[in-house]
């Protein structure tokens, strides 16, 4: 039998339906792979017993012909998603051994459709980071290495565990979240496919909040089709999240292979950064050429406020985070440090429970919302946000169907290489992705090639609100042209 972990989700679905193998076999294969790959530190909690129980249940349903769309498919879950009865920490010490009594809407929909949970995946603490180095469980290793090098690289972040686990074939797909690029950047760093859907497409209920107006769940998967299958189960209106949108979820998989002929693809002038590596430039041109070859029309477009996106993002996101993280106070759950009075309890608990990057953002957020600074920072950033949104609207109003950009300004870097002295160096990783969150649009990252050192690079497609289907159609074209990439196993 072929190695069951090397299948795509679509292939596994067929194998299960044809009874070529069982979900239990598929699940066991992945559990073994996880065990063998602990050096990657992708999983922070393995749930083999639960996985096998869910797999058996799925096998029963498949046998009865009562299988959901994801029946028997083993997945990894980012530790930001609350999972009932299974420790959920957002990879922060402050949540300690918090075990939710509730299941997030997104994961409950996956279980409803028959998926199997392998365990909880590592991420940057409270999803704050672009390298998965801020996790209280330690950094995650990227299964990719530079040619001829033993240096462990970061998988990107904040969904580093999700990207690493999918790339290393530890799970068939993973949930992830994206506030400024946390799905698309790690997907690009690991040659996986990641889509951040339109804001409001997936429920945020039961996902530990980072920045409420930007956070959105999405899948990281091995192929565009796999991502489409996963998103279909994850998406949908939820009355418990009033920012989720009540429009039907289409069959995203039906968009795969759909002709892109005549589609207008915008190439934004402002994304051509000074000092951008030539190989990123080359990748971008190549991607454009593939789409053109498939019949799409390329047009240069302008998104004039792009350069203000990152600074504005680093006001809005920390502002919301500073308020969202106020609930971690040592009073009701999670870590509580000893103290003589309530102020000390707050101070001691939060000082020892939060890591440096989280503290930095809470401080920034508190500052920009302070009386006297609110207008100069927060209000202005919101105005910039409106302008960024308008840039995209103007562009789509001219008939542009999607916008093609690089996903990241570079390939994966080594653990400890970036952001040590200057956090902005790390923040620049999200330069191509934050605008999408600021505008609430869908964005997909698709592997498109490798750099000179053999590391994967990705392209990003940005779509109209709630038009994820076009992104899947276009993403498939890039995937077909570029091929799929699998890292050589070293772990």
């Amino acid at each position, binding site marked *: 039998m072929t190695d069951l972990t090397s299948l795509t989700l679509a292939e596994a679905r067929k194998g299960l339906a044809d009874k070529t193998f069982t979900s239990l076999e598929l699940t066991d294969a992945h559990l073994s792979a996880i065990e063998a790959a602990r050096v990657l530190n992708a999983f922070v909690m393995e749930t083999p017993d639960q996985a096998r129980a869910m797999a058996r249940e799925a096998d029963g349903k498949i046998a009865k012909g009562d299988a959901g769309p994801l029946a028997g498919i083993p997945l990894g879950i980012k530790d930001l*998603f*609350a999972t009932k009865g299974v420790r*959920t920490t*957002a990879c922060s010490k402050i*949540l300690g051994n*918090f075990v*939710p*009594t*509730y299941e*997030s809407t997104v994961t409950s929909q996956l279980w409803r459709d028959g998926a199997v949970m392998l365990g909880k995946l590592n991420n940057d603490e409270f999803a704050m980071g672009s390298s998965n180095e801020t996790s209280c469980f330690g950094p995650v290793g990227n299964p990719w290495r530079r040619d001829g090098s033993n240096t462990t690289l970061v998988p990107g972040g904040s969904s580093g565990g999700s990207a690493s686990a999918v790339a290393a074939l530890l799970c068939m797909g993973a949930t992830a979240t994206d506030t400024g690029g946390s799905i698309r950047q790690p997907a690009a760093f690991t040659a996986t496919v990641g889509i951040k859907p339109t804001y409001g497409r997936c429920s*945020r*209920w*039961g*996902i*530990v*909040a980072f*920045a*409420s*107006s930007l956070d959105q769940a999405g899948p990281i998967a091995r192929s565009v089709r796999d991502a489409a299958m996963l998103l279909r189960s994850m998406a949908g209106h939820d*009355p*418990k*999240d*009033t*920012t989720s949108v009540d429009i039907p979820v289409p069959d995203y998989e039906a968009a795969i292979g759909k002709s892109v002929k005549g589609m207008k693809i915008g190439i934004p002038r402002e994304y051509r950064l000074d000092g951008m590596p030539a190989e990123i430039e080359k990748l971008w041109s190549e991607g454009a050429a593939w789409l053109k070859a498939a019949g799409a029309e390329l047009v240069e477009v302008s998104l004039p406020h792009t350069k203000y996106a990152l600074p504005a993002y680093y006001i809005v996101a920390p*502002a*919301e985070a*500073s*308020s969202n*993280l*106020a*609930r971690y*106070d040592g*009073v*009701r*759950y999670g870590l509580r440090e000893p103290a003589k009075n*309530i102020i000390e309890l*707050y101070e001691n608990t939060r000082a020892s429970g939060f890591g440096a990057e989280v503290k930095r953002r809470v401080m920034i957020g*508190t500052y920009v*919302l*302070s*009386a006297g600074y*609110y207008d100069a920072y*927060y209000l202005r950033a919101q105005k910039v946000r409106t302008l960024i949104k308008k840039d995209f609207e103007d562009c789509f109003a001219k008939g542009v169907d999607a916008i093609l950009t690089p996903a990241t300004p570079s390939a994966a870097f080594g653990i400890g290489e970036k952001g040590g002295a200057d956090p902005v160096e790390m923040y620049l990783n999200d330069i191509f992705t934050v605008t999408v969150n600021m505008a609430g649009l869908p964005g997909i990252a698709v592997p498109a090639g490798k750099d000179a050192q053999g590391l994967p690079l990705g392209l990003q497609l940005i779509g109209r609100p709630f038009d994820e289907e076009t992104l899947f159609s276009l993403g498939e074209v890039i995937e077909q042209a570029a091929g799929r990439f699998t890292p050589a196993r070293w772990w």
Partner: protein
Amino acid sequence: MSTATHKLLKGATGDWEMVIGMEIHAQVTSNAKLFSGASTEFGGEPNTHVSLVDAAMPGMLPVINEECVRQAVRTGLGLNARINLRSVFDRKNYFYPDSPQGYQISQYKSPVVGEGEVLVELDGGRSVTIGIERLHLEQDAGKLLHDRSPTMSNVDLNRCGVALMEIVSKPDIRDAEQAKAYVTKLRSILRYLGTCDGDMEKGSLRADVNVSVRKPGGPLGTRCEIKNMNSITFIGQAIEYEARRQIEILEDGGQIDQETRLYDPNKGETRSMRSKEEAHDYRYFPDPDLLPLEFSQEFVDALRSKLPELPDQKKTRFIADFGLSAYDASVLVAERESAVFYETVLDKLANRAGDGKLAANWVINELFGRLNKEGRDIAGSPVNAEQLAAIIDLIGEGTISGKIAKDLFEIVWQEGGDPRTLVESRGMKQVTDLSAIEKVVDDIIAANPDKAAQVKDKPQSLGWFVGQVMKASGGKANPQSVNDLLKSKLGL
């Protein structure tokens, strides 16, 4: 807008005027909390009415309870206020264990209800109109319990997240009497609307009172805020004390520090809680978990069409329909329960239009008078509306006199029973049978020939004869019949 003269305080340097504004926190009458499905029931075991949202568990999101929105809009309409079709929920950030989220969801820049006004009646037929600045919805906090452990405090989150309406007045109030009357009137309107039970003892209605003093007509002084008042009497006392404290400081050449103060009813004084320098920076910003609150004019109009009659309208109607005095009408409408009682009596009367005024007199003078004397409220009245209506009918139809009616009321109060049956069984019926009265009249005239002779010159002495006849009949003779009969027998 003040049309009433108000009280000035005398200081060493002359008269001082008080300027008072109030923020009333009224708990919304609703089954569930503002943003969660947890029960709002009062008095449960600690932490039994707490949802995951109330406890601010990770990943939980607020969802607006539409019933609370309807209640806020209805209240706004009752305050003759502008209803904002679009308003915004903001986060007010602060750390305290009674606030699990680390912020209170409130409305800061865009409240659901804008400017309105309340007509407030004062003694002696005076009245004053107090402006409403705004009304907004916000979450209540939990409660700290300090008596359960020697070293720690506990927190009860049952109230946490319950909907409050914060009703902010303009600084239009000028003395303690007006302040008390304003709270009383507001509470009455809320109870009529059924949007807040107004129970101050349970904390359903609390007031923060802003007080400053100035020379009459002079510029506004620095204000102090007296927090969390839950008794109308204490509000009056606190204002008087606080104004005098400020006058004393100013007259001694000092200045007022803007600060938050607490009133100690045992000592009858206010004391500093925190100064402006210690004031929190709440870092308000729009709550990104909630969309702006938007509804249509049709939604508002539908609520308006179903509003109950409010005290001011009821008062006008009572005066017009039954010829009540403005004072009597005010007394009847002041509390919803009183008005309901009066109207129930009216509904049971045989002659509603004719006896409405009589009924008002009986409700106010006999019933309320008696209830007040015994320290009871209308809900605990031994005489119900049906019984009272029967008594009034008996007077109206001439079956009993007003005097007998008072005796009958006393019997019903003490023993209960159907007034009409009691009148029969106890022989209290007025005697209108002329032959029965005639005998008594003849006897009295025969026994008093001197007086009978005098009465032609002194017609006013007829009253003595009437009194004698009534006395002899045990009060049951019809006074009019007695009068007529005496007149004819005495040749008047």
